[in-house]
């Protein structure tokens, strides 16, 4: 019951999802669509797990008065407010939308925008022509980056005006992306895809069981 049934379930659902993709018959397609909707229904229940552990973690912090335990109260406050307003009145109600637009959205956008700072500091630190490979990384990054803004072509046309090409920066940018970049990406994708398929096969056949965790 504890190990065999999950393995069988995993096998059955895996095989059904594979076979229905090879069968255009309306029955197979019906099964395919139904099972997809099942997965969408089951998925959100896992949030129960999440919420329970989140509450456990933070109550433990508050109880033990670990360092910065006060902030765990902030977590609870945010969670409770969103749930209390969202669940009874739905996500389209004005207060929920206000909270989303003025609390969640700005923090999301701001955290995302931290990347602008980090991308510059990472470039500054890592783009050193230490080796041949590092130089390739550095040069292509600079060309593509400059090819993306008008000032790149402006520089090319002022400094390299004697070359037969006009707007060379953006041309080279596109060429690099279409050719060497494309083949490198293909190489990675081919390798990774083989890994994905091989693991999926192992899972369906019950060879890979790490997801069941330890124990019996």
């Amino acid at each position, binding site marked *: 019951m504890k190990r065999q049934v999950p393995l069988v379930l*995993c096998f059955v659902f895996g095989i059904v999802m594979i076979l229905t993709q090879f069968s255009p018959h309306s029955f197979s397609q019906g099964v395919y669509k139904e099972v997809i909707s099942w*997965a969408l229904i*089951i998925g959100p*229940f896992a949030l129960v797990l999440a919420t329970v552990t989140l509450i456990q973690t933070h109550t433990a912090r508050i109880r033990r008065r670990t360092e910065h335990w006060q902030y765990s109260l902030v977590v609870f406050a945010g969670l409770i407010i969103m749930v209390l307003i969202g669940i009874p009145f739905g996500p389209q109600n004005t207060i929920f939308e206000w909270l989303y637009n003025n*609390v969640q959205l700005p923090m999301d956008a701001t955290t995302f925008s931290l990347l602008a700072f980090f991308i510059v500091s990472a470039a500054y630190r890592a783009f050193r022509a230490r080796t041949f*490979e590092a130089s390739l990384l550095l040069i292509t990054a600079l060309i593509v980056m400059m090819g993306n803004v008008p000032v790149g072509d402006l520089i090319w046309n002022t400094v390299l005006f004697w070359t037969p090409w006009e707007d060379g920066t953006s041309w080279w940018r596109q060429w690099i992306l279409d050719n060497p970049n494309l083949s*490198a990406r*293909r190489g990675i994708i*081919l390798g990774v895809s083989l890994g994905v398929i091989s693991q999926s096969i192992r899972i369906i056949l019950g060879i890979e069981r790490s997801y069941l965790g330890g124990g019996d």
Partner: protein
Amino acid sequence: MDFWSLIGIWVAAFLTLSIYSVLYRDNPFYRFAEHLFVGVSVGYGIVLSIYQGFIPLAWKPFAAAITGESMSGFIKLIPICIGLLFFARLSPRHTWLIRYPIAILIGFGSGIAIPKVLRANIFEQTHGTIAPFAEIAAGTLSGWDIFEAVLIVVGVICTLTYFFFAVEHRGPVKWLSKVGIAFLMIGFGSAFGNTVMGRVALLIQRVDFLLNDWIGAILTIF
């Protein structure tokens, strides 16, 4: 501008600055924003998964079945019951029951992936690598196009060689994989450079918010 929009801008501006303060170092403002963010986002996730997942996909068809509109809704009882097994986590003795839904989700994900990945990533990428050579045979490509097609084949083969694990990288394999690394580095460099624009745009948008919507609004008062 109405009162709540004004308050909204101030709250958003405060939280924006609190998050940016981490660039200097960890501080109470960042800690507050960070924890609030975690709490709010979990709450938002719960509400959304109920209203956009559970209600339309499970509850509505099921309710329609109960009222006798459409019997097919009863089939949704199966995924609902499977989903409920996640609550087994709350009882230490029955924790193992949550393996059932996990196994189903994993089997489902693996099954759906195999044909899709094989077709979209392996068949199509291989096809895309070979296809230009048909045009070479037909004589419709210029010398430069031929060079590009050959370059891509060389790039793909060398990059793939780098990912051979069961052979020692010696002799010709070593050289091929060295060329592969060069291609990888060009690929990484260009991907890095190509991302800069989008990321900087995000920052510009935030600064625009702070300068125009927030400070701009303060200045209009005077």
